[in-house]
């Protein structure tokens, strides 16, 4: 079992130094997080609904569909996952539409740590990343050293990205510093021996945090701890990603860049199944965080079935007719 790597050199720019005062003690951190402007639930949901009424047609739609495909973290997180399943998923990620070589590949495949080596091998030299869920995903109910070992194991196997879960129990009982320090430790465990590091996505499980105020606080907490991405959900809890929750997180990364100059990515995951929904998210990215986030480096969709719907819509834009579900591959 790997030992705690809290003493390892920080990976990437470390914003935690800029928030040394705010994270100096439990009470200081609580004051900071509770001092963030509140979120009015009714107003936030109205705003998200209004963004959802944007009408994205023709050239704008073609742009959005291609971008959305490039942003997909094609995911399989099942007890029944096998090497064969993961290989098939990798093939799909690299060439989503076998009939169209011009179709972009997805951003990453997302698997459990024991499947990282298989995925890595299957993807070979392609640009598709391997993301591994770690830290006792999805519940996060394990001792810290086990979570860190889980992380280090995935990094060692070649994961480019680690999707960790926060300890929601600690967060909901107000032990923010514990959550903060755990993220710091996992971030350190993302370091590779060659001096590089895996990117860290921090999953909040917003369906369990429940309030938008909590989502905003969790966002700041994770960003201050150096998360490269903040992610809504594991996909195992309902509701998973919603447009208002994602909007609140996009506001947070926007405000965080204004405060620190550093960009953090956002990943809604779970429940986004249709192109129409994906386009609403992209409109929200565009109008809330800004166009700098319209890039797979800064926005991802954690999804499995979404990809085929994007492909069907894309093929319709290209050929002028719907091809039907038999013309996209089921993997």
């Amino acid at each position, binding site marked *: 079992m790997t030992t705690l790597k809290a003493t390892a050199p920080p990976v990437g720019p470390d914003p935690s130094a800029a928030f040394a005062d705010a994270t100096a003690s439990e009470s200081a951190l609580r004051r900071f997080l509770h001092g963030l*402007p509140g*979120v009015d639930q009714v107003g936030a949901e109205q705003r998200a609904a209004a963004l959802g009424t*944007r009408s*994205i047609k023709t050239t*704008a*739609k073609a742009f959005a569909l291609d971008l959305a495909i490039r942003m997909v973290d094609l995911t399989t997180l099942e007890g029944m996952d096998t090497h064969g399943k993961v290989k098939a998923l990798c093939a799909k990620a690299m060439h989503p539409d076998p009939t169209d070589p011009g179709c972009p590949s997805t951003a990453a495949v997302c698997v459990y740590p024991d499947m990282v080596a298989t995925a890595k091998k299957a993807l070979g030299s392609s640009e598709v990343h391997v993301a591994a869920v770690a830290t006792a995903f999805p519940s996060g109910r394990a001792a810290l050293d086990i979570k860190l070992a889980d992380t280090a194991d995935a990094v060692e196997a070649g994961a480019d990205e680690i999707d960790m879960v926060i300890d929601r129990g600690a967060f909901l009982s107000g032990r923010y510093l514990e959550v903060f320090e755990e993220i710091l430790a996992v971030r350190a465990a993302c370091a590779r021996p060659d001096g590089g590091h895996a990117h860290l996505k921090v999953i909040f499980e917003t369906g369990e945090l429940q309030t938008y105020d909590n989502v905003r606080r969790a966002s700041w907490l994770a960003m201050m701890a150096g998360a490269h991405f903040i992610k809504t959900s594991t996909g195992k809890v309902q509701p998973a990603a919603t447009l208002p929750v994602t909007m609140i997180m996009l506001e947070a990364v926007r405000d965080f860049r204004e405060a620190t100059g550093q960009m953090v990515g956002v990943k809604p995951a779970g429940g986004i199944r249709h192109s129409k929904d994906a386009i609403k998210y992209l409109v929200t990215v565009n109008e809330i965080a800004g*166009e700098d986030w319209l890039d797979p480096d800064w926005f991802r969709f954690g999804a499995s079935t979404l990809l085929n719907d994007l492909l069907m819509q894309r093929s319709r834009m290209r050929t002028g007719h719907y091809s039907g579900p038999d013309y996209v591959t089921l993997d």
Partner: protein
Amino acid sequence: MPNNSAQFEYAPAPESPAIVDIKPSYGLFIDGEFVDGHGKSFKTISPSTEEVLAEVAEANDADVDLAVKAARRAYTRVWSKMSGAERGKYLFRIARIIQERAREFAVLESIDNGKPIKETRDVDIPLVAAHFFYYGGWADKLEYALPGNGNRGADPQPLGVAGQVIPWNFPLLMLAWKIAPALACGNTVVLKPAETTPLTALLFAEVCQQADLPPGVVNIITGAGETGRAIVAHPGVDKVAFTGSTDVGRAIAKAVAGTNKRVTLELGGKAANIVFDDAPLDQAIEGIVNGIFFNQGHVCCAGSRLLVQESVADEVIAKLKRRMKTLRVGDPLDKNTDIGAINSAEQLAKIRELSDIGEAEGAGRWSPACDLPQTGFWFPPTIFTGVSQAHRIAREEIFGPVLSILTFRTPKEAVEKANNTPFGLSAGIWTDKGSRILWMASQLRAGVVWSNTFNRFDPASPFGGYKESGYGREGGRHGLEAYLR
């Protein structure tokens, strides 16, 4: 036009105008039929293109007389004798037809008024149908409408013929606010839409025919100020209801003084939208934007004065500017347009004049970069910072997409500044503190006080002003009082 993104450029998404059938000319709707007027005619244009849409009759005194007499006949012979339940059926029928023809109404309203299709589709027309449904429900329950009526014994009675004059900012919605309660209470009406936006009222006249509403119950006569004056002055009118400017409202109050006519006036406003430092700021920004840029700021209850606590003023202004950069100004029929055309050349001139005065008085003027179309009447969303109570742009109603930003230090100062206006139609409070909302609401001299929202309307909620914003209430149970005795 789109100024938010070079990368993700929203392609044009125009709503098709093919659904509406605009006739080359329109007569007056009197006694259930379209008839030629006896006066001149005038043209109504599209404010976004300046194209002539149709020629419309200008009702003269003789036409007004015919309309009022038709309304009187319908009142005496049919409508006042009909049971409330039967009247309600007509209102429900009208509401359903409006829902069925919602897209047609939305497109026509957008073309004639210049407001974005997004607003006519999602706000105006749904609210119109909701008003008819709401008052349809009251028609057979009027004995419960007036407080204490049960003790007086007699059921409340209608007033007779209502003369109604409405503005151009929400043409069909203001028609609904006027006609629905009047008919529910058993009155008949003669209504004049504004001269720049007569078309949806004339389409509504068709709906009355479609609903088999007895002839003369609703009469729609078009025209300008003279026609309006003739309606107000006609001795056969029992009740005058007006929505519009405070100047005209004053003239109407004078004209009816000493007569038996009842009057309700819904006039101008200069509402304060008050943002405290503990407000949910991102939602407050939306409320500010919605408060002043909704409907191009052509809203009597618009939040045209932003009062922001000094400790968060810089942050709020910075966030507001960033948000304003994503507002899309342009073709009203494009489904992605947030801000449409100014309704008329005359109104545009007024907005320009007051904005120039604001600049001359030393306030800081700012608008996001936006390409305005070459033809039509356009004004960019604009804010003025560093405004004080003494500035004209803090006192006079601009009725356009122009926001004056003032600051305050304490809740008491916010109340003083908010109330320091001759108007009193609406106000907004943004704070996370519930007790402060209640205290502020009790102190503000405004007919509607929104908390953590702005410009929200519902037929069940009464609406109306304090001071020079008028008198009488529209909407809700209170709205019935204006049409009953």
